[in-house]
């Protein structure tokens, strides 16, 4: 039984780490600010959730698991909020590295 949990937890931890690396890779490869924002959110969601789930399985039924779950809950709320803050700041300061996106919808002058 403990072997199964061990294997499962390492699968989760390794795949979470892989998603974190993929997110970082995307932030380097993508051409402009907006697409990089999307790449970073892979690290934010999949990487974070899988890593924390794997660590929860490692620690079993202890106080550490409670703390890990609390960290997950807070990241679940604060992660998108901070991403939104960054995106909104970019919109307000009119960063449109991708000219197509700028032409498509930046006509709203009321921001």
């Amino acid at each position, binding site marked *: 039984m403990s072997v199964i949990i061990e294997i499962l937890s390492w699968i989760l931890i390794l795949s979470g780490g892989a998603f974190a690396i993929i997110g970082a890779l995307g932030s380097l*490869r993508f051409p402009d600010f*907006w697409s990089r*924002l999307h790449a970073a959110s892979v690290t934010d969601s999949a990487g974070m959730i899988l890593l924390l789930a794997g660590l929860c399985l490692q620690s079993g039924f202890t106080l550490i698991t409670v703390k890990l779950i609390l960290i997950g809950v807070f990241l679940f709320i604060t992660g998108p*909020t901070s991403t939104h803050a960054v*995106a909104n700041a970019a919109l307000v300061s009119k960063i449109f590295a991708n000219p197509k996106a700028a032409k*498509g919808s930046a006509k709203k002058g009321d921001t």
Partner: protein
Amino acid sequence: MRSLLTVLALFALWLLMSGIYKPLIVALGLISAIVCVWVVRRMDDAADSERLVVNIKPVEMIKYLGWLMVEIAKANWAVTKVILSPKMQMNSKLFRVQHTQKTDLGQAIFANSITLTPGTVSVEVERDHFLVHALCYTDGDTAAIADMDARVTKTEAA
């Protein structure tokens, strides 16, 4: 009554966080929980005593969170494929999304859900719509986000 419950909740949280159950330490934790609530009450008197009202159906919310997890997994996979493909085909677009939530909290949940799924970021919140930026915009996206909007609205209690 409300303050007593808050003290109890804070103290329970403190117990979970600390894990040390010596009498002195536990007493200090209880005192800090009480002082915390006392300070907040004083601030209520001094400031606008604004309260966060949580109008949410718990069962619907749990169902929604389960659905959201599946959506996050799917979206993650889609964005991962774009990152790892050599050509990196993307079609980024900024578009408007109507929202039908009545409460501020519902709108915050909807906007955060949009941002939490990789590939879409809510950029601006207006009175009746959000500005959403998508990495790979397809015609189905508007319908998918409208579906999410309906699901968030369903979790709101009237």
